[in-house]
């Protein structure tokens, strides 16, 4: 009975809007329309979504962003975890400093990097120019650089989280296999490759799924840095939905797009739950 207050709250506040969203996704519903008419369209919003080059482009950008951030963050995060694994007072202190980025408001992170990337007075274009790499309109202004630049911001903020997850994973590994390997004359590289990596597999899965789901939801840093540009080079699906719904007020269409995103993320979330469930046994 301790559960019921929360369940009632969630059903009223969360589940009802989700059904409402499902419902209006079948209508043409513009908030800017003075008569507030809703015209029933059936599945047209969904069918149009897959024909809309802006949407397919946004989905492609999302996949690039997600793949880029997740791969780099997992590789770097594992490296950092191995680097900072020692339990000395120094590494513990450094590790707590490393926690700062992920606790920061993503909007602030985006703005700080925007100033670092600024083409006129930014630090990064300046030093890159000294090294002989001229970025033209700056990392955020050039079509081919904008996406990597935004990915780097996300990597900066979230790699420490992956580090923390891998540190917990490393700590839970048993000692015996390492001793056995040492007796058998394995090098440290061999015991890392043949013992540590295979035993970390569940940790990899958790890190991978968790970051993939979070990466799909990126919004603040895009809003703060590029606003989806240049052109639509960094318009991810999440940001596009915001534009359709909250800037152009096409609520029916935005709800349909949001439901598509919801289905993608829910599929990943169910996979994540299955992995967690298996790990317990």
């Amino acid at each position, binding site marked *: 009975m*301790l559960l019921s207050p*929360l369940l009632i*709250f969630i059903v009223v506040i969360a589940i009802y809007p989700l059904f409402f969203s499902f419902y209006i996704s079948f209508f043409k519903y513009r908030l800017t329309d003075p008569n507030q008419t809703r015209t029933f369209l059936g599945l047209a919003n969904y069918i149009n979504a897959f024909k809309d080059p802006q949407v397919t482009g946004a989905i492609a950008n999302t996949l690039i962003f997600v793949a880029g951030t997740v791969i780099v963050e997992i590789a770097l995060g594992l490296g950092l975890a191995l680097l900072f694994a020692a339990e000395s007072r120094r590494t513990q202190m450094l590790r707590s400093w490393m*926690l700062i980025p992920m606790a920061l408001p993503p909007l602030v992170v985006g703005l700080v990097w925007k100033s670092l990337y600024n083409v006129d007075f930014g630090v990064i274009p300046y030093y890159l120019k000294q090294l002989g790499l001229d970025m033209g309109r700056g990392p955020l202004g050039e079509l081919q650089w904008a996406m990597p630049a935004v990915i780097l911001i996300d990597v900066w903020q979230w790699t420490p989280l992956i580090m923390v997850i891998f540190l917990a994973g490393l700590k839970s590994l048993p000692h015996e296999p390492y001793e056995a390997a040492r007796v058998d004359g394995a090098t440290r590289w061999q015991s890392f490759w043949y013992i540590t990596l295979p035993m970390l597999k569940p940790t990899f899965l958790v890190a991978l799924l968790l970051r993939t789901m979070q990466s799909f939801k990126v919004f603040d840093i895009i809003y703060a840095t590029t606003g989806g540009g240049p052109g639509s080079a960094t318009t991810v699906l999440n940001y596009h939905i915001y534009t359709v719904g909250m800037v152009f007020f096409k609520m029916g269409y935005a709800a349909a797009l949001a439901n598509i995103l919801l289905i993608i993320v829910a599929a990943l979330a169910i996979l994540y739950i299955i992995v967690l469930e298996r790990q317990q046994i």
Partner: protein
Amino acid sequence: MTPSRTERIIRVALMALAMFFFMLPIFWLMTTAFKFGREAFAIPPKWIFFDWTLKNFQEVLANSKTPRYIMNSIIVSAGATTFSLLLGVPAGYAIARSRSPLINSSSYFFLLLLMIPPIAMLIPFYLVMRDLHLLGTYAALITLDTVFDAAFVVWMMRSYFMDVPQEMEEAALVDGASPLQAFTKIALPLSVPGIVASALYCIIFSWNDFLFALMLTSPKTKTIPLGILASFSAVEISWGRMAVMSIFAIIPALIIALFLNRYFVQGLTMGAAKG
């Protein structure tokens, strides 16, 4: 097999490189707050040797809206955290102690809820709040934050309560305590660290939130992230004022990462990795 000397040097060098990469933007933000406009724009960049000034702080504090933004952020974070704990902690306990498989697996429902893309919830919620004429109120923002916060608290507290031994509660029940007393008098005091970890997560979530605040607040209820954007006035872009506002915005993050990190890490790893 002690690491060789060269290996130790490489290790330290890599650590230094990592710290440099992760701390540099924060250092840049902090120093920009103390710079005059022309020096924030100086090329080549001035890292340490510039004219330090408190001008930006004076300007931001002289703006009558600044205390409003900070106050609003505190109200929203405190409100959402309180409601999330009140709803989530008992629910987490109920799930942890229940023997019904249906209730046990309902914890996954909350995990699923936690994963929902905020925009998918925001669009219908915005319309509902609009119909109820609640747009721009604290209530709207706190309610939506509470959905995501409470889902986390349930998930977190369930795994925490499962690790708290049940024997003492059972003994109390035998001695005639009610289940509610077993919860409030025995289980709750034993799980304070878990509650602290949950509360920190809620505070950070609400304090850092931008998207919900962007759509649900009015000029009177704007939180700090929106205040930061407002410091880019139409007249001039002041990176110095932006940096000062950002420092207010990152204070909770700094406190939590540097002083309460044990709880914070517990929340992250338990919330993320533990089933």
